[in-house]
């Protein structure tokens, strides 16, 4: 049986995805992207950073991207962020 993503279950039950434990959360401020509840890095370069999450991965594109802080729960990418894709 195929496992349904948690956010799809939450959407079906009309529960806000934010309330789900372990759901990834992205906060984008000027020149800095904070990702909470990540599952590690998929790809890391100066113009593209791919962050694994529980339900897929987040691709951050831009230039001069740099991993400034990382621990088990969250990581911060600093630089010029041109696009954020949720795959």
């Amino acid at each position, binding site marked *: 049986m195929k496992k349904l993503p948690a956010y799809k279950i939450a959407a079906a039950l009309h529960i806000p995805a934010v309330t789900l434990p372990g759901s990834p959360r992205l906060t984008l401020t000027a020149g800095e992207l904070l990702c909470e509840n990540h599952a*590690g890095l998929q790809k*890391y*370069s*100066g113009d593209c950073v791919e962050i694994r999450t529980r339900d897929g991965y987040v691709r951050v594109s831009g230039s001069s991207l740099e991993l400034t802080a*990382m621990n*088990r729960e969250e990581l911060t990418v600093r630089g010029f962020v041109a696009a954020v894709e949720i795959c």
Partner: protein
Amino acid sequence: MERLSDLIRGCAEMRITGAEPERVINACCEAGIDFWGVEAEDEFSLVMSVRQSRTGEVKTLAEKCLCEAETLRLRGGRRVASRAGSRPVLWILPLVLAGILAASTFFVWRIDVTGNVTVSDTEILNALADSGVYIGAFWPGFSNELTASAVTAAIPELKWVGISTFGSRVTVRVREKTRIPEIFDESLPARIVAVRGGLIEQMGALRGNPLFENGQTAAQGDVLIDALVPGKFEGARIVRAAGYVTARTWYELTAVMPLSRTVKEYTGETYTAMALRLGDRRINFYRSSRILHTMCDNIVQEKKLGVMGQFELPAALITEAGRGYTLKTVTVDRDEAKKTLEALLESTLKTKLGAGGRVLSSEFIFGEAEGRAVVTLLAECRQNIAREELLTEKEIAALSAELEETDDREDNGG
């Protein structure tokens, strides 16, 4: 601050090479290894910094992730310690300086005196020095209470002294005694004399024997009201004369001022010199004390070294700035000179007349002589010319003898 922490703890720059170097980052994160400065060199390698003590763990994790880790550079930590070990001056000098700094806080480097009005700072500082509190004194060696008592005893004008020690700074707060007003002793014999000659207009003798009448002229120093009062029934007696004598007086005051004066003309030359004062010694950071050979204005600023309000060091940084100038002679405007002299003369006359004096008429005469402006003030005034003069012991004795002689004569005659 982070750099200093890195230098003390030691950090290593490592290159991770492999098919997926990101896996090493994830593994480090999982293992709780701190890393920073992650830079991707290309698709298969990246550089990051970790603590020197964790390099072995990073290499093990890299092998598990099918990558290779190599140390590029080591900074701080043991390397710095080993270098410092071979050069003792690097750690001995800061230690010695820290020791000197710590020791200096046990000595008095500044004394502030507040609350004194009539007693001078020097007097209080001298009394403090006699009690063992002076610049350079070891402050744990003296008691604030005992010193305050000694200063109070040494200076009778003080009623309270409080001494507080804040590190190398001593604050002395004082309160002075309230002065007792002078008691007017009516038994002291005195006479009233003319402080200035004039035509007496009004005379009122409250006590004593008036020797002049209205309309008479008195010269300076004349006795206006005598202390010896003749009595019709009890004989003469000596009293403390009191009264007022309003007279018309005339003044002729002259003031002179040169009609040329010298002013500064700045040449544009400037200099700045630095010096360090250690205790009583001064170390100049320049060769000559007068760099400008012409005349110059000197502005000296002294900045004491230490932590503001906490403690002070016996050292100060002195900055001297100078502006060179030459002297130029300029002519003073006659009207300006006249106005200046007139104002000066008016002020002088006002001082001479006193509080109750009044100018009835005045005239200024302006003239020039030998390159100088001369202004003469002719004024007719009305003022109190009475001044009390206490009799000397010799005069009192002479008057007493005269009184006794008169009494004896009257007794014999009677």
